[in-house]
């Protein structure tokens, strides 16, 4: 199987280790990965902050770049949600019929990472080994826009050595919200504090998620508080193997 990796702008810049883990994981599962060198951003930040014409141009760019891809994998639920939920409205408003048709043909081939593993590859046990106590943060977009449901938990359940620490108030936002985190910095900080209480109460060594954006927020708060917990994208857990750990 061939899949094109859309790494997303912030993963490319801030979290390259997540991208490398996706590559390791998917190649181990026999996926032939491609990486379009022209890729930049899906337009989410612009769309969600109200910069609609700017978001148009990035959405158009994305669709034109990936229209011939067999499958597109994106290790970020909020970017997938942007593409699925907001692109149709943007193209409708733009009145670009051709782009709308191209998008309609492309969108069924776009997968968030956990969707790709479970729905497309049909695997839950990816042969991972991660001997740590881990709690899972359900990002809002994964939870309510993509309806990932129990997919992340099914994947984590099959990771060797992993002990899952359940998180209270799983469905509560961490307060990141993109530019919300600075436009409403004080409110966002208060939301983060509330969320961190629940996350730290799990006593886990790692907090994982399918969005590095939430993890950047949670991790930034943890680091500021000298909390004994780290954040890690789920791709990195799923990419870890026994060989790596033991030698």
């Amino acid at each position, binding site marked *: 199987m061939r899949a094109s990796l859309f790494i997303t702008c912030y993963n490319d810049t801030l979290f390259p280790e997540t991208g490398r883990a996706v590559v390791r994981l998917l190649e181990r599962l026999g996926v032939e990965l491609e990486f379009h060198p022209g890729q930049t951003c899906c337009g989410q930040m612009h769309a969600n902050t109200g910069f609609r014409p700017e978001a148009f141009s990035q959405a158009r760019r994305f669709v034109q770049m990936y229209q011939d891809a067999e499958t597109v994998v994106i290790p970020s639920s909020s970017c997938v949600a942007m593409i699925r939920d907001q692109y149709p409205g943007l193209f409708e408003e733009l009145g670009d019929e051709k782009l709308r048709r191209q998008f309609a043909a492309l969108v069924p081939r776009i997968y968030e990472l956990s969707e790709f593993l479970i729905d497309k590859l049909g695997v839950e046990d990816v042969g991972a080994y991660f001997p740590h106590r881990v709690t899972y943060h359900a990002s809002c977009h994964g939870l309510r826009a993509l309806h990932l449901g129990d997919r992340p938990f099914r994947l984590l359940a099959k990771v060797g050595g992993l002990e899952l620490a359940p998180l209270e108030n799983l469905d509560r936002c961490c307060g990141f*919200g993109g530019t919300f985190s600075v436009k409403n910095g004080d409110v966002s900080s208060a939301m983060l504090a509330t969320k961190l209480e629940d996350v730290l109460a799990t006593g886990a060594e790692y907090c994982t998620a399918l969005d590095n954006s939430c993890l950047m927020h949670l991790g930034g708060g943890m680091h500021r508080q000298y909390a004994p917990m780290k954040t890690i994208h789920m791709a990195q857990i799923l990419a870890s193997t026994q060989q790596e750990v033991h030698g």
Partner: protein
Amino acid sequence: MSSAGHPILDPTLAPPFPVAALPVLRNPQLRKNVAHAIDVIQAKRDRLVAEKTDWQALREAASGIKDEALENLAAYLEQFEERCTAAGGHVHWAGDAAEARRIILEILRQENADEVIKIKTMTSAEIQLNPFLEAAGIRTYETDLAEIILQLGNGEPSHIVVPALHVNRGQVREIFARSMGIENLSDDPQALTAAARHYLRQKFLTVPTAISGANFLIAETGAVVIVESEGNGRMCLTLPRTLITLAGIEKVLPRFADLEVMLQLLARSATGERMNPYTSLWTGVTPGDGPQNFHVVLLDNQRSPILARKTERQTLRCIRCGACMNTCPVYRQTGGHAYGSVYPGPIGAILTPQLQQLQHARSLPYASSLCGACYDVCPVKINIPEILIDLRARVTDQERETARKFSDPMYLGLRIANWIFSRARLFHLAQWTARIVLRFFTRKDGWIHSLPSVGAKWTQTRDLRGLPRETFHQWWSERERQRTRGQGGERPKEPGTREAAR
């Protein structure tokens, strides 16, 4: 005067949301009280929603009913007017707040009223009716228990179903003791309720004019519906000689049978009850029973323009259950006053700016992390995040026209980012630049603890990991390069190739 008005809940005067939120953010006890109160309601709501196996079908039906009403609003309102008038009521049309206030004052003047009792009317707060009537010499008495607390204590509502959510029992005791002149009043709920009842009974028995809101208007029959928990509404609706109902035009439902859907959704969503304790329905005037003069004031006040936009039109489906604020992680931190309007929470964040035609309350569409919890619980399926984003686009388009765009780092940053994202080469150059610039802010531990400008809003409570030495695409292309080289090496030794030469 301020006892009757809602000065801080005037969207034309309210400070921007991030500023308005600060007093509550700095008050941990109040935040704890707000969070506890909404958690209790939400837990009850979740339990009762879970027992309905047809909840999603009910939501679907309700949003369909409201859409049908909104798409044919003029026809249904005229039908309501016709049926209500035939049953002995008087229907008035108010284009804006000033007209509604004038109509109500005229009716009260005809009745020679110098006092009026009020129930279940947020709309009257929207049009700031109380200060207007007080200035005209007419005393207003709220009769909903929470509204009494607020009125007597010079407070403001912070929730649409539980307006005094932010006031604790000790404060209620203090307010009642002071304003009702009861020394030795205990803070026992029964004693407080008894004090309120005593105060209210006098008003119910002596004030002959009342103003109410409406939960629903029924086009088919001309009936008005009010749901409540205390029975004080029932008193207001039955004892006075004259009753004036103020209702937003979006309150109309096509048919009586539609209530079957709406009442199931409303009680469960609002208070976590299978059925609310008091549901009052009345149609016009019944000779010898209840108010003998009945007026309905239909209020537009910038609702019609909302109808014109398909996405935003959903806003007018709202049945004021408050479920969106009970589940909202932002409201949970800020409470209701920060929204600067009688309509707080997620629904307020979309309704208020639209009622203000985006001339005021422009910060409200940004008062959300777009987490989508409100959409999930909304009984009439208002896609609040979608509308927030739409309103943000309209606010941004306004900003493009103003000088602010040259001074706002966020605006400039996003414009530049868009240019950068238009070409991979620019994007990569920007990454390289950012890495160099951020190096000056990165400490030995590899983290950034403090940033200037917009970044300071991040680093006030959060660190940021310094940029890694290599981006993902650099790693990928380096790997590709090595692979190609490696593949070359595996090929049978061809004299003259670089690999072979090694």
